[in-house]
Each structure stands twice: as structure tokens, then as C-alpha cells.
């Protein structure tokens, strides 16, 4: 670079430079990420779609004249969509309203997705941050434990748990959450290790912060970006896991239902009414699709590698 432009820059009157500086507004990491996110149409569309789906599943049942367990005694068989009887998507083979059941199944899927992921989030972040920050023996012990857990086919254990303790709704959240925290803890640990020796942590320690307060005040907020991305990708896995259990008949208990259970029922009756299979399959796949796109979008927006 030649010297000329630099000197000319320096000659800019002082007041002008100050004015310009005042115009430039600082952008936080989150604002930056949000801007990048908005530019990603697929991710934004997915986010909107998910919000719409969730609202419809939780608010929709108030407007459907049937409940998910109510049997229409006049029908008692699968009927095609019938607006006069107010079965807008028809009924299943027992004469229960398809729309009401689909919405209820959606509620279960979303709830499992969010609650089980929260369980995984809490355990994973705590273990990961502790292992990474404290280091030494604690780190060794926790990470060997995670290694052992990784080697175990945990799906089999979830099924054993469901068999042993009965098909309890809350147990399912816990069991799935206990399985999904492993990767989360590894990711958080890795991030914490890089943060541990940064100056601001040293400053916090020098000013007398305890280990707990440093982890909560400084480490966790800084790993949040990566954690959010991973959470968005964990939710669809959890929803899939629940549907898988319900499909095998080991998930939620009848008459409650979930998309997986509806798919299993639909698969039994697909010869006569393909609708009962295709409707829940479309709902489940759309939700999983959207979560995956949203996760990919968030990763692009928050990943420090591509910045």
C-alpha cells in the first residue's frame, strides 16, 4: 500500500471524523446473527412455519368440535372428510375425529421436543461447563463417563425403561433427555476449554469471582450461540425418537396419541384409507424438515468459523 491515501485520510478535518463515528452504530453479536438469519429465506420460512404449526396444535383444539378421544357413535368407522358432520379431515377406524387427533398428536410431539431437549440442555451444559472449566480429575471422570455412555446402545435402554416403569409420559421426557445430553456436554466442554484461558475470565477471577459465578456469568453466556444451534438440531431428533417409540407401541398411552402413534395406526389401515397414514406422516416430516432448516440457518448465522 502506498503512503498517499493514508496521509490524505489524516488530513480529513477532525470534526468530520467525529461526526462519522457517531453515525456508525455498534452491532452486537446477536444483532449480527439476526441480520444474517433474516437473509436466509429457507430458515426464516421454517421458523414461521414452525410457529404457525405450534400455535395451530395448541390453540386449534379449542375450535374443533370434537376431542381427540371422543368417538362419533353414529359412524364407528373410517369416514372421508365430511363438512356436514364437522369432521373436516374425516375420522379414523373407530370414528374419532382425525383433525382433533392430529392436533393432539402435534401437542405431544412439540412438548416432548421442548421438554426433553430442556432436560438434555440442563444436564449437558452443566456437565460440559464443569468438566471444561474445572478440568483435571473432574474433567477426566466426567468425560470417561460420557465415553462409556456413548458406547451403549441407549435406544435399547429407553425401551427397557418404558417396559419396566410403564408407559409414563413424564418418564419418557426424562429418559429421552438423559440420552440426548451426551453430545451437548462434549460441545459445551470444547467451547469452555477455549474460553477458560481468555483474559476476561482471568479478570473475573482476579476480581474475586467464585468458580460457580464465573461459570454462570461468563462461561455460559459465551457458549450460548453454539448451544442454541445444537438445541435446534436436538429437538427434531427427540421428536423422531418419541415417534419411533410410539410407532413401536412403546410411547404415549391410548387414547392419547402422537404423530408416531397415528402413523402406526394409519399403517394398519392404509389399504382402505391411505389418508390416515399420509396426514400424520406429512405433519411429522414437515416439522422435522423445518427444524433441520432452522438449525442449519442458525448455524450459518452463529457459527464463528464462517464469520
Amino acid at each position, binding site marked *: 500500500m502506498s503512503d498517499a491515501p493514508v496521509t490524505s485520510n489524516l488530513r480529513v478535518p477532525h470534526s468530520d471524523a467525529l461526526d462519522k463515528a457517531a453515525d456508525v452504530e455498534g452491532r452486537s453479536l446477536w444483532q449480527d446473527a439476526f441480520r444474517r438469519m433474516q437473509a436466509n429465506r429457507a430458515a426464516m420460512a421454517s421458523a414461521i412455519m414452525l410457529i404457525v404449526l405450534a400455535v395451530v396444535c395448541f390453540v386449534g383444539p379449542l375450535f374443533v368440535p370434537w376431542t381427540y378421544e371422543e368417538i362419533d357413535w353414529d359412524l364407528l368407522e373410517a369416514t372421508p372428510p365430511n363438512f356436514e358432520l364437522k369432521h373436516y379431515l374425516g375420522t379414523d377406524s373407530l370414528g374419532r375425529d382425525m383433525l382433533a387427533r392430529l392436533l393432539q398428536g402435534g401437542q405431544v410431539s412439540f412438548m416432548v421436543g421442548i421438554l426433553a431437549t430442556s432436560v438434555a440442555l440442563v444436564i449437558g451444559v452443566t456437565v460440559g461447563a464443569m468438566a471444561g472449566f474445572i478440568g483435571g480429575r473432574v474433567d477426566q471422570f466426567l468425560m470417561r463417563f460420557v*465415553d*462409556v455412555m456413548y*458406547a*451403549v*446402545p441407549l*435406544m*435399547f*435402554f429407553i*425401551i*427397557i*425403561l*418404558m*417396559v*419396566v*416403569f*410403564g408407559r409414563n409420559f413424564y418418564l419418557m421426557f426424562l429418559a429421552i433427555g438423559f440420552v440426548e445430553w451426551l453430545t451437548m456436554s462434549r460441545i459445551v466442554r470444547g467451547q469452555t476449554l477455549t474460553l477458560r484461558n481468555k483474559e476476561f475470565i482471568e479478570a473475573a477471577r482476579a476480581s474475586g469471582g467464585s468458580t460457580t459465578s464465573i461459570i454462570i456469568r461468563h462461561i455460559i453466556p459465551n457458549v450460548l450461540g453454539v448451544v442454541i444451534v445444537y438445541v435446534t438440531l436436538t429437538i*427434531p431428533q427427540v421428536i*423422531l425418537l418419541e*415417534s*419411533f417409540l410410539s*410407532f*413401536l*407401541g*412403546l410411547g404415549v398411552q391410548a387414547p392419547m396419541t402422537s404423530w*408416531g402413534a397415528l*402413523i*402406526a395406526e*394409519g*399403517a394398519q389401515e*392404509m*389399504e382402505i384409507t*391411505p389418508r390416515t*397414514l*399420509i396426514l400424520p*406422516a406429512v405433519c*411429522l*416430516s414437515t416439522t*422435522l*424438515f423445518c427444524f*433441520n432448516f432452522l438449525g442449519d440457518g442458525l448455524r450459518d448465522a452463529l457459527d464463528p468459523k464462517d464469520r
Partner: protein
Amino acid sequence: MWAYFTRRVLIAIPTLWVVITVAFFLMRLAPGGPFDQEAPLPPEIMANLKAAYGLDQPLWWQYLNYLGGLLQGDFGPSFKYKDFTVTELIGQGFPVSIQNGVAALTLTILIGIPLGAMAALRQNSSADHAAMTVAMTGIVIPNFVVGPLLALVFGIWLKETVFALPVGGWNNGAFENRILPVICLALPFIAYVARITRASLIETLRTNYVRTARAKGLPFRMVVLRHAFKTAMIPVVTYLGPATVFLLTGSMVIETIFSLPGIGRYFVQGALNRDYTLVMGVTILAASLVIFLNLFVDLAYAWLDPKVRYE
């Protein structure tokens, strides 16, 4: 290398022991036993049944007995399939599951890797976008949805045409009976492997040594095949370890949908019938498979990547 190998095997043994112990005591915690029926059995018969299966012994004795049996390859008698031992049931079911798994893995390698490589070499072309959309669909639509849909299309809608395929049963391993289950099992793998191959090959093609190879005038084809490909396969090989877990859980689904007599279906049936010994047997088998295949993958890893050295 040998030290590493020995250490891994030494870690595998306690891991397996933990799996066995946890599974054993979880099963014994269960309220209700395998002989509970709608009409309760008279207490004398119940006592006899329990004595026959050794369930009247103290728990620690049952546990030691079970461990001793395992060491001799004896998984105990099945509680529900009378006249069968769990070892016999696994012996019948395992070959079916293995054959399907190997067929699905072969399909994955034959389709997934070329698909991903093609997408990487034509990055951001419409072919790339099309391939990756298909891959995303394969990942997102679970195989318990694909299975019934395939059965619906090939078993019912195309019933009268030449494309009709059987949608259930094993029929002693007839070729037509295997097509749909294997495709259904392989689809998510193909999708994952294609995505991993693409990402990894794109990254490898940007490395300095690939640029060097191109700069010295090698044709692009040679650069890809001789230089980039082996390195790009490392993440794919790494994925094959966890893939065995997917294979095992996938087999639960496809064997249930297509009524195949494999260990996945035995496991699900066993779980629904509270056939404890059968469930435990399959779990232990699955855990050993996962542990040893992971070890195998790690060793393959060292062979592929000269930077990886185990001490």
C-alpha cells in the same frame, strides 16, 4: 498401536459389564413378572414356574448365575417362547438382521458416496442442489414413514402391475422379499453418507496439497481419485461406527413393518411381552456389536489418516 488396542479392549470389558448389570437389575425392578396372566395362576403353579426358571433364588445368586451363563454363551431360557433358549432365538434372528444390514450398507456405499462426490465436484450446480434436497428428504422422513408408504405404493397401488413386490414376510430370504426392507433401511444412510461425503470432499479440495497436485499438472480426475478421495473418506468411516447403532434401531422398525424374523423384531416383541431374558440378550448383543465396531472403526481411522497416531 498395540498398547492403544489393548487399552480399548480393556475399557470395552467394564463397559459391557455395566450394560449387563444395569439391564439385569432394571429388569428385576419391574413390577409384574413374565408369568402374569389375566387369570392369575394358582400359587403352587406359580412357585413351580419360578423354581423352574430359577427365579426363587436370591437376587445376587440369579445375577451370578446369569453372568456365568453369559461367559459360556448361554443367554438363558426365553420366558415367552417356551421350548426356546434366548441363544437359539438370537441364532435364528441374527443372520436375518445381519444380511439386511450388510445389504443396506452395500447400497449406501454404492449410492451414497458417488452421489455425495458428484454433488461436491459440481458444487452449487442444480445437480448439487437436487442431490442435497433428496438427501435432506431422506434424513427428515423417518423410515417408519417410508416403510408403510413403500408398502402402500408397491404392495397395494401397483398390485396388478409388474412392479408389485411382497410387503411382508421373509419367505426364506427370497430376493423380492428383501427389496423393500433393504431400501427402507438404507435410505437414511444413503442420505447421511451423501451429505458427509459432499462436505468432506469440498473441504479436501480446498487444501494446499490438492492445489499442489493440480499445479504440477495432474489431470483433475487423478487429483480427485488419487489424492483427495482417501482423505475425504475419513469422516465417512467415522460415521460408520454410529451407523451400526442406527442399523440396529432401524432393524427394529423395518422388521416390525415387514414382519421379518430378525433380532429387532424379537426385541420389540420381547419388550411388549415382558420377555426379560430375550430383551436382555438382544441388548447385550447390541452393546457388544456397537463397542467392537467402534473399535474397528477407530483402527480403520488410523490406517486412513497418517496424522492419527494412537499411543
